[in-house]
Every structure is written in structure tokens, then in C-alpha cells.
């Protein structure tokens, strides 16, 4: 089996799983989840094989694994689509396959496979537990299995298929196809528990905001295609094609052709990776089940956005304005999201905002040209963010045990202030969550987070982007602070509520993925250690060599500089220390200083958007088009015509039909004919001689007439 065919086959198993589950096995839960997990395993194995083969190839960048096929006849040429694995693709493929496999495994446990059916669980609502009588006749409620269990795995399969196509595709179009499938799956999975109105609203919100971004991306793709005539990366990133793109002047904000295309594609990513203007959907997306949040809203989908920008980096880097825009949006989102994360109480919302800020970091890195750093941070972030989310999932799962145990459903299992002291109840979750947290906040030397964030800060410093450096450092400090806040509130200290006391550790299917991911959260960092770190030549910076190869000209290694290192150390450790110190004795939301309403309500962006966009649109559709245009104008016209025609018809009937035709012509004519008949009747006297006389008279008259009319020609 050549690598190319193998690459073609990677996305296939999840798609097959989706169809199998939907069409055949959705009745049997065990069969469905085994099909799903099996598909994930297959894709994972294929990816690993491809990955290690890619590692084995020298200078993969010059001659990546490529296979393309004629798909659409466009006149005399064919539009070609295909698959390609270059160093960047291989790296991303590696982390995507692992995370997808872990999430499939995790979902089995999360949806309480093997638990009894819920007493009054309805499809579309989260399971409310089932009352079970054990051998001693005690009645106690146990978490019930998810009613729509196989449906969840089907959607996951579809989502995996979307992600894989995006990663392996060698052109923008199939990438966009994968992009759209993931958008659909995010809608389906966020709105998984469609019974809850908030879930439904969140799904629609997610779908609409990403949709806005996708439109601009499509514009970009169209413009690119019209300009170059092809969408395959290899053909676009040739030297003369790029020059050609730069030479085009779209007369738009002084951007060059390449710049405009890059900007349009970047706006797509802003939507997808929830950057600043279009970030509102990600926190609401937490409505979905935790594996969804983990997979979609931490590891794969949002990183897909960044992957797209990295892929298009050679195009973006041509235009300075676009780079500045990207950098600005990245840095601003980082600091902005970090400030909000500090004020959140829901354990998943904190992580959501931290994801947004970390993505901001990557986009900022790309903005300042740190291509390899961004890629490296993308991969490491995927690992530890997935770990954190799954950890929070198991914490919530434990808390649900407590809620079911106490039966008091008013306690929100996700609110951190209801937890506390869970390290004793859930040790594995506690340790893995701790590793994740330290990776996120960039605990020096040990965690992967440190290396990737340090890379970015080093690049920022090296290339003189001081403003970016300072804001990113501040953002890093706040990240460390709210991470520590989260850890202390949930795990350290004493349990603040009875439910917290009864929380139990989650089953193995949930804790094993946590452990695997924590290994990567630490191990993967060492891959990227720069050669000249402290000029100790600790490691040959494989990552830099490997991923850098994708670009045409290899990015040069930045010289070692102690200042960014020191700053990152200070920031990381300071944030952690302060967080722990402050939140040790904070036991309720009111005592928390940082519960500033502004931050708590996410700078009122949702309300702003509601007012600025949604209300006018609703108003536009509801009031304007419906009320005025549709009902007022069109119906008005019809209503006008209806009675008008009725009126006209009535008029015609009344005056023309009745009066004229019936009376005047109908009866009138009849009367006239009768009258003439009566007057003419006496002529028929029966006397034959009178007839003769009459005919003679007429003959004479006509004769005379003819004679005179025809002239005396006779």
C-alpha cells in the first residue's frame, strides 16, 4: 500500500462509521460505540504509519507525499483535487489523530455506557439518573445512560471525517469542504441536547457566527481562483504565481491582491477560531457535552482555523498590512479573553476563554512572522487544552455523582464555588488536571506550554515587536493566574458543598485518556527545544528543522536572548503563586475580588451584538420585510386588487351586464325585434296580389337604385 493511497484512506473510516451508525446500528448502543471507536483506531493507525513514513523522508518539504485526481472539467482543463502530506501536515495529522482517538474513548465513559436507562430520560435532554435498588433494597439513584448514545458517536464520526479531510487535502476547496463539515458537526453537537433551549440557541449562534467568517473565506477562495485559476497549494506558492498575486491591485484599502486574499481567508479563521470580533459563540458552545467541547472547542476545530492561516502563511507574509492586522487581532484577543476568563465561575467557561486567548497567542505569533513557533504552540496547546477539558469533564461527572447522591438538583455541578477539596475524592483527575494547568500557564522547563509560549515571546522580542511582547507577557501572567484560581477553587481546600463531599472518581475509560494526554502535555515540549537555548545545544530543535521545511526558504533560527526567557519565567511563576495565595481562602463568589460585572458579563459583547446586529436583523426581517414589505406592500397590493376586482366586477355586473346587456341589448333587442315583428306582420295578409304588388314595388325601387347607382351604363 503506497503512502498516497493510505493518505486517501485516512478520512474514510469515520465517514463509514457515521453512515453505519446512522443507517444500521443506531438501535444497539454497544455496537454503535464499538463501530465509532474502531473507526477512530483505524484512522489513528493510518495516520501514525503516514507520520512515521513522513519522518523518514529527507527534505519532505521539497517532495511531499502528493496524489491528485481530475475532478471537475473546467473547459479544456480539469479542476484537480488531491491529498498531500508535507512536514506541517504530518505534524498536525499526528496530534489530530491522537486527540480524536482519545475523545472517542472518553465519550464512551462520559455517556455512562453500561448504566441503567434513565427513569424519565427523554431524548434531547441530559440524563437525570436512574433509581436502582441494590441487594439490600436500598434505593439510590445512579447516573443513567445517555438516551441518544449512538447518535453522539455518529456525529463524532462525521466530525472526524471533516477534520481529517481538512488536514490531508492539498487544495483550498477540499479544505473548505472539511471546514464546512466541521461547522455542521459543531452545530449538531452543541445542539446535541436539543431539549434545552439554551443548547438550541448556542448551536444556532455558533453556526451563524462561523458562517459569517466562512462567507469571507469563500470570497477569498473565489478571488484566489479567479486570479490564479487553481487552488492547489503547490501551484499557488510558486514564486511567479505569488509575484503575479502581489501585482494585482484590487483597489481595496491599499492592499495588494495577495494581501486582500490573505485578509479574506484570515477573517474565515477569525470566525472559526473564535478570535476577537467573532468569539462570542465559543463560550456558549460549552452547552454541548464535554467531549464535544474538548474535541471541537479545544483541540481540533478551533485549531483548524489556525492551521488554515499557517498553511496560507507564505501568501499572507507578502503583504505587511495584512500581517499587522493579524498580529493586532491575535494580541488583542489574547489579553481580552484572558481578562474575561479570570471572572468566570463555570469551570468549562474559564477553559473556553483560555482557549480563545491561547489562539490569540498563535495568531499573534503568525502576525509577527513566527511561523514555526505558532505551529509548535498550536500542537502543544491542543494536547494540554484537551487534557484540561476532559479533566473538567470528569470533575463535572464526579460532581453529578454527588448531586444524584444528595438528590438536590438545584446545585450546579459545573460551578467551581460548589466544589473544593476534590483532590482527595478524585486523585487521578487532580494530578492530570494539575499537569494540564501548569502546561497551560507555561510552568518553566517542565511543561510543553512553556517551550511553545517562550518561543513566541522570543520571536516577538527578537523581531522587535515590543508592544506585542508586552501584551503577550501580561496575557501569559493572567493565564497563569486564572489557571491557579481554577485549580485551587476546585481541588484544593475543603469541599464547600455536600455534593462535593460525595463526588467520586470517574471510571477508567475517562481517566486513561487523561493520563495519555498528560504524557504528551509534557513530552511533546521537549521536541521543540531550540538548539541555542542557553547556548547549551541540549537538543537539535527537530521541530524547527522538520516543520520549517514546509516553507520555500527555511526560516532562520533566532539567536538566544535571555530577556524573554526571564520574563516568561517571572510571569508564569508569579501568576501561579498569586493565584494560589489569593484563592486559598476565598469560599464564595461574593468574596472573589475579580467578580467585576464588566468582566463577568464578557464586556457585554453578547448584549452589544444582540443590540447592534441581531435586533436590527430581526427587526429587518420581522418588521420590515414581513410587516411592511410582505404584508403591507404585496398583501396590500393583493388586498387592493381583490376588492378592486370585486368592485370592478360588481360595477360591470351592476351597470354593464345588468343594465346594458340585459336590459338594453337583451330585452331591448328582444323588444325591438318583437315590435318590428308585430309591425311587419300585417304585411303577410295572405292576399297573393298584395304580395305581387309589394315585390313589384321593391323591384322597381331596386331597379331604379341600381340604374342610377351604376350610372346610365346600361
Amino acid at each position, binding site marked *: 500500500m503506497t503512502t498516497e493511497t493510505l493518505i486517501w484512506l485516512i478520512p474514510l473510516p469515520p465517514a463509514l462509521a457515521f453512515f453505519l451508525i446512522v443507517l444500521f446500528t443506531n438501535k444497539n448502543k454497544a455496537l454503535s460505540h464499538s463501530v465509532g471507536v474502531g473507526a477512530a483506531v483505524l484512522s489513528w493507525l493510518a495516520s501514525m504509519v503516514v507520520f512515521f513514513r513522513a519522518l523518514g523522508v529527507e527534505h519532505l518539504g521539497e517532495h511531499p507525499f502528493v496524489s491528485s485526481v481530475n475532478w471537475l472539467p473546467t473547459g479544456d482543463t480539469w479542476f484537480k483535487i488531491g491529498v498531500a502530506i508535507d512536514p506541517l501536515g504530518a505534524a498536525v495529522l499526528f496530534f489530530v489523530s491522537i486527540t480524536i482517538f482519545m475523545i472517542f474513548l472518553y465519550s464512551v465513559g462520559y455517556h455512562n455506557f453500561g448504566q441503567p436507562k434513565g427513569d424519565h430520560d427523554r431524548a434531547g435532554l441530559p440524563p437525570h439518573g436512574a433509581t436502582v435498588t441494590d441487594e439490600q433494597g436500598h434505593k439510590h439513584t445512579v447516573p443513567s445512560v445517555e438516551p441518544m448514545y449512538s447518535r453522539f458517536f455518529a456525529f463524532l464520526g462525521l466530525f472526524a471525517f471533516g477534520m481529517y479531510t481538512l488536514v490531508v487535502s492539498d487544495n483550498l476547496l477540499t479544505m473548505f469542504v472539511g471546514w464546512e463539515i466541521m461547522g455542521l458537526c459543531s452545530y449538531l453537537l452543541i445542539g446535541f441536547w436539543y431539549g434545552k433551549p439554551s443548547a438550541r440557541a448556542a448551536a444556532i449562534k455558533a453556526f451563524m457566527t462561523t458562517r459569517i467568517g466562512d462567507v469571507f473565506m469563500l470570497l477569498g477562495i473565489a478571488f484566489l481562483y479567479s486570479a490564479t485559476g487553481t487552488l492547489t497549494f503547490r501551484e499557488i506558492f510558486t514564486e511567479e504565481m505569488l509575484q503575479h498575486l502581489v501585482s494585482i491591485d484590487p483597489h481595496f484599502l491599499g492592499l495588494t491582491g495577495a494581501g486582500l486574499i490573505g485578509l479574506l481567508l484570515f477573517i474565515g479563521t477569525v470566525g472559526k477560531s473564535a478570535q476577537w470580533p467573532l468569539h462570542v459563540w465559543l463560550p456558549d458552545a460549552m452547552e454541548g457535552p464535554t467531549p464535544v467541547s474538548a474535541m471541537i472547542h479545544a483541540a481540533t476545530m478551533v485549531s483548524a482555523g489556525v492551521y488554515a492561516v499557517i498553511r496560507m502563511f507564505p501568501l499572507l507574509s507578502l503583504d505587511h498590512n495584512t500581517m499587522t492586522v493579524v498580529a493586532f487581532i491575535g494580541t488583542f484577543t489574547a489579553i481580552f479573553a484572558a481578562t474575561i476568563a479570570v471572572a468566570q465561575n463555570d469551570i468549562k467557561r474559564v477553559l473556553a476563554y483560555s482557549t480563545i486567548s491561547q489562539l490569540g497567542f498563535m495568531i499573534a505569533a503568525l502576525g509577527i512572522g513566527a511561523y514555526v513557533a505558532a505551529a509548535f504552540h498550536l500542537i502543544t496547546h491542543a494536547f494540554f487544552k484537551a487534557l484540561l477539558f476532559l479533566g473538567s469533564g470528569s470533575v463535572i461527572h464526579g460532581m453529578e455523582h454527588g448531586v444524584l447522591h444528595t438528590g438536590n438538583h438545584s446545585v450546579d455541578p459545573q460551578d467551581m464555588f460548589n466544589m473544593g477539596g476534590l483532590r482527595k475524592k478524585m486523585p487521578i483527575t487532580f494530578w492530570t488536571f494539575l499537569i494540564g494547568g501548569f502546561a497551560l500557564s507555561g510552568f518553566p522547563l517542565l511543561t510543553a506550554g512553556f517551550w511553545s509560549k517562550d518561543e513566541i515571546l522570543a520571536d516577538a522580542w527578537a523581531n522587535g515587536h515590543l508592544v506585542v511582547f508586552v501584551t503577550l507577557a501580561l496575557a501569559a501572567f493572567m493565564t497563569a493566574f486564572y489557571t491557579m484560581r481554577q485549580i485551587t477553587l476546585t481541588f484544593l481546600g475543603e469541599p464547600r458543598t455536600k455534593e462535593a463531599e460525595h463526588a467520586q472518581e470517574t471510571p477508567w475509560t475517562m481517566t486513561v485518556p487523561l493520563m495519555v494526554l498528560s504524557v504528551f502535555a509534557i513530552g511533546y515540549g521537549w521536541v521543540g527545544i531550540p538548539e541555542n537555548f542557553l547556548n547549551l545545544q541540549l537538543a537539535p530543535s527537530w521541530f524547527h528543522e522538520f516543520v520549517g521545511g514546509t516553507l520555500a526558504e527555511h526560516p532562520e533560527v533566532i539567536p538566544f536572548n535571555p530577556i524573554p526567557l526571564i520574563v516568561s519565567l517571572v510571569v508564569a511563576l508569579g501568576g501561579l503563586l498569586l493565584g494560589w495565595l489569593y484563592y486559598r481562602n476565598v469560599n464564595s463568589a461574593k468574596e472573589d475580588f475579580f467578580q467585576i460585572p464588566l468582566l463577568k458579563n464578557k464586556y457585554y459583547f453578547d448584549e452589544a451584538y444582540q443590540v447592534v446586529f441581531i435586533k436590527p436583523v430581526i427587526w429587518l426581517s420581522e418588521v420590515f420585510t414581513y410587516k411592511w414589505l410582505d404584508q403591507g406592500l404585496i398583501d396590500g397590493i393583493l388586498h387592493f386588487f381583490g376588492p378592486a376586482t370585486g368592485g370592478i366586477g360588481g360595477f360591470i355586473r351592476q351597470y354593464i351586464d345588468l343594465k346594458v346587456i340585459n336590459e338594453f341589448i337583451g330585452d331591448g333587442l328582444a323588444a325591438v325585434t318583437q315590435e318590428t315583428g308585430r309591425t311587419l*306582420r300585417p304585411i*303577410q*295578409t*295572405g*292576399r*297573393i*296580389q298584395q304580395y*305581387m*304588388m309589394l315585390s*313589384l314595388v321593391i323591384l322597381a325601387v331596386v331597379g331604379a337604385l341600381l340604374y342610377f347607382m351604376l350610372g346610365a351604363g346600361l
Partner: protein
Amino acid sequence: MIPLSWYLIFAAGLFSLGLFGVLARRNAVAILLGVELMLNAVNINLAAFWRYGNVTDMTGQVFAIIVFAVAAAEVAVGLALVISVYRSRNTVVADEIDMLKW
């Protein structure tokens, strides 16, 4: 010699007398008499036109003979009708034979 006009005028005179007879007489049989006069006038015309035209072309005379036949048929049927009306209505006066009055 006699010009053609004399014959035609003579025939016209006979014709109008016949016409007067037809229109004015009360007795149905008398009406038929009038008709006979008119037919004779026509015959005179035919003979005159034969004589004053190409004599070898006998069409005029043939027409005259046919008119004889027609006149004979007409009188036969006419008088038969009058007789049958007389026998059923006991009147021959034209004005009283107005059964076809409306």
C-alpha cells in the same frame, strides 16, 4: 320593314296589361289569365330576338317552345289548385283565399 323596337314595345304593352290583370282581378282564374298574357308577351320577345338575331341559331324558338310547355304545365297546375281550393272553400276570389295569412 318593321324595326325590332316595335315588337319589344308591343310585348312590353302586353306584359304590363297582363301584370295589371294579375294584380287587379278578384277572381283567381282571371289572375291566371293575366299570367298567360305575360307569358305570351315573353314569347313574343323571344321570337322577335330570334328573328332579328342570327336566324339559323334556333335557340330563341327552342326557348319559346319550352315556354309553351311551362305555360301549359303552369295553367294545368294553377287551375287544379284553384279548383281544389274552390271545392274546399267554395270561393275563388283571391282576397278570400288568404289561408296563409299569419
